[in-house]
């Protein structure tokens, strides 16, 4: 399991307007592309330098590929990253705070302590 890699996906997609749209429109294809070409890219580093070992667990890949944010919460993805990216993708489909409140409702079955987010 790699909470770090889940967070890296959310972080790198959220900061790129074109990737936000691509992930909204084609989650499965975006996750496949990202894992095969971007997951090992070292950020804030000389261009082209990469790691060799990062990959998603099956449950993580599935959660990202289905936009399953309650499952991402359960897997320990950083809630701020998940919320920010999903607001960017889906707030537009709701009135006012409708999406944020639906998001809370879909997580209502979680009680304290929440899943650990430490990476």
């Amino acid at each position, binding site marked *: 399991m790699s909470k770090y890699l889940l967070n890296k996906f959310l972080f790198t997609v959220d*900061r790129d307007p074109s990737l936000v749209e691509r992930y909204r429109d084609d989650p499965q294809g975006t996750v496949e592309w990202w894992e095969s070409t971007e997951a090992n890219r070292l950020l804030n580093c000389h261009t082209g330098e990469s790691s060799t070992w990062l990959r998603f667990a099956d449950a993580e890949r599935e959660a990202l590929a289905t936009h399953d944010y309650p499952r991402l919460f359960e897997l320990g993805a950083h809630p701020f990253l998940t919320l920010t990216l999903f607001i960017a993708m889906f707030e537009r489909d709701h009135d006012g705070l409708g999406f944020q409140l639906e998001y809370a409702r879909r997580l209502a079955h979680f009680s304290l302590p929440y899943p650990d987010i430490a990476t």
Partner: protein
Amino acid sequence: MAELVAVIASTHHPFYYRASTATGEDRPPFADEWVRKVEAFRETLTRANPDVLVMVGSDHFHQLWLDNMPQFLVGKAPFYDANWYNEEREFGLPRMVMTGSEDLSSYILREGIDAGFDLAFSNELRIDHSITCPIITLRPQNDLPIVPIYTNIFAPPLPRPKRFVQLGQTIRELVESWPSDQRVAVIGTGHLSLELGGPRQFGPHGPDPEFDRRAVEWISTGDIEGCCADVTLDSLHLPGNATHGFMDFMLMMGVAGEGRKADYVDTYDLFHTMEAYFTWYPNGGAAS
């Protein structure tokens, strides 16, 4: 030596800018009272007539990332660009540029390291809404040089609450020993109870009004001892999953001093989170 002319602790609400500038049907019903409270709070800084601002905040996964995460970082640069694409997108925040006080940054880094804090530094730091929000609320003319100080309240493992208090105490000592005739205000922002990306988010109030009441009491009375007795890294999960931002308030209590009552206290109960504003005048209040 430099003079510490004001210590200010505040929540940083990224929706203030949009709410306060909205007009007509877009203007939320709570905006007018919010603006009134912020303008009164702003006056507490204006009265202190500062020359330079030390700004304590926390990067929200903008420039600082999990591949290289500092616990405490001091900016040292002549300028700071500010606000990010996703803050424009979600909050409508404007792009900004601030000037930096490199002399004070250098002093805080050198003396802070010697005082036992292995401070990280950045010579090219783009700051985010944890620092731009208080510029917008407290100094919208954005005419003073700053020293940004970032704390990690976001990506575990975090420093413990007591460490934030100690850093605040050290920042005060460093400001007051800085060989300069500048008037310095220290401004820090954090949160009371807050939930982001969890089941308690975006409720009609903050997720834990009782925690908020106690927090305001700790801060306004300078009750560092009582606060530290009750607040741990584990306990901060209970009021809301983003409540570790309260540790930046604890840092500011360290700047203000044990037992030091705030000279100005105001709160505003909003949806999602409670706003809270505190000002201390270390030398008794009236500015020159």
